[in-house]
């Protein structure tokens, strides 16, 4: 096991870290006596999991923590969540994930989520912030059993405007594969870089915006919610669509956001996430 180093919070001072951060966290939940309970927890390396709200009738809330303080080339983080049948789980992260300059290699993050029969899970991490010369490859694999429901979001911020950080060259690849009852119901493949400064300005790409998010909601009532979600986020910068692909016993709602910065993005996302997650609610970090 590598010795962990705590990444410097100041990217300008960030020296290449020769040690690579590794982390693996696994969480399993189960349904018992009308409640969602913890069934298993494993954490290794820089991956930590906190459960601030295990008791009560609400969903089980899990907070994922990367204790290495950020990601850089060669780092590897693997999360795995198994939500048992009829459970309700909300997962978020303790802080935004900063992806620092990579001296060599790519930071890799994988997340595997299994959602049991009639279970619901919300994956609501905070922003991923990409710094100049960072390289991140991420994979999100979700598998829903019949009757399962999922609300997923990934906000991404391209440098921090307030800190006058400029993103010139960086590589970012985000791949999502979502299966329902064994069949692929949705896929996302976003890929930016290496000339990211140019891409951020292109009108078909980010049109000068510095933050974006994708929301996917796998739910039988997805199509009925389109107008209500649109009403929450009027104006440009948000697109909402929903449909039921042939042969699926559920629908999907898809929303895309672009915004000038992470704060504006969060303000527009929060009410949408709160509405779509209904009674399960959103973690404190998402209630604005």
């Amino acid at each position, binding site marked *: 096991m590598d010795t962990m180093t705590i990444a410097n919070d100041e990217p300008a001072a960030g020296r290449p870290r020769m040690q690579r951060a590794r982390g693996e966290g696994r969480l399993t939940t189960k349904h018992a006596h009308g409640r969602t309970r913890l069934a298993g927890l494993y954490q290794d390396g820089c991956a930590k999991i906190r459960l601030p709200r295990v008791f009560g009738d609400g969903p089980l809330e899990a907070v994922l923590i990367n204790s290495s303080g950020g990601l850089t080339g060669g780092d590897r983080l693997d999360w795995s969540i198994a939500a048992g049948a009829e459970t309700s789980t909300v997962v978020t992260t303790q802080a935004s994930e900063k992806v620092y300059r990579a001296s060599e290699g790519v930071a890799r993050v994988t997340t595997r989520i299994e959602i049991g029969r009639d279970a619901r899970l919300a994956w609501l991490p905070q922003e991923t912030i990409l710094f100049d010369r960072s390289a991140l490859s991420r994979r999100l694999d979700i598998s829903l059993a019949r009757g399962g429901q999922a609300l997923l979001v990934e906000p991404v911020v391209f440098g921090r405007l307030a800190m006058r950080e400029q993103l010139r060259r960086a590589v970012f690849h985000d*791949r999502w594969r979502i299966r329902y009852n064994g069949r*692929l119901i949705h896929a996302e493949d976003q*890929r*930016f870089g290496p000339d990211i400064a140019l891409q951020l300005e292109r009108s*078909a790409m980010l049109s000068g915006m510095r933050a974006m998010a994708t929301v996917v909601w796998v739910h039988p009532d997805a199509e009925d919610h389109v107008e209500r979600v649109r009403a929450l986020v009027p104006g440009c910068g948000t697109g*909402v669509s929903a*449909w039921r*692909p042939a042969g699926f016993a559920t629908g999907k709602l898809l929303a895309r956001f672009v915004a000038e910065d992470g704060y504006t993005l969060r303000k527009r996302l929060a009410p949408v996430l709160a509405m779509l997650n209904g009674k399960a609610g959103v973690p404190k970090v998402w209630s604005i």
Partner: protein
Amino acid sequence: MPPATEPVAEPAARVRLMTLLSPSFPVGAFAYSHGVERAVHDGLIGGRDDLVAWLGDLVTAGSGWNDAVLLRAAWGAGDARERDDIASLAEALASSRERHLETMAQGSAFLAAARAFREARDLRLEGEVAYPVAVGAVTRAMGLACAEVLAAYLNAFVGTLVQAALRTVPIGQSDAVAALARLEPVVLDAAARAEIATLDDLGSATVVSDLLAMTHETQQSRLFRS
């Protein structure tokens, strides 16, 4: 899946490709703008230069590129099962309800129309299949070279969208042809890259284009289905 039939002699292959990917092949391509109509409405495409930049980005690093990668994979699929997996992936990647309709309706229409040719009938591929997967499977069965199919497909992709723009942007026929001329090297370069690509190379950066394909659904007056 049976091995590709003997490569068709060159002029015959060219003619076949021109037929399959011509604007008059009945897939209804003229009905879809892929979000271009919305981008014009929002002022992001105001003229020829904007149009060339927009379509070039789609082909280089956006939904057009993903189509090319999916076509390449479908063309090279080892068996029907692998092809079906690629078809599922292509459908799942559709980035809005109208984009889903655009690719599924054209794919199905392509398969139905291609049945005029024996190779397509022998393929036994029917029903709802995303457009690039349908084109990849049929052209492989016909023994058409993948490199040429990719170039023709991407050329048809930009050709369709230039025609869509012609009906919504104040540009004339000569601008439209000039746009196609400027996009020619972009199309050829993307096709060459796609020929050696695998599904690992999927990836799009055209977020605003995808977003506008969604807001097109609420556009009050519209000529196109996407």
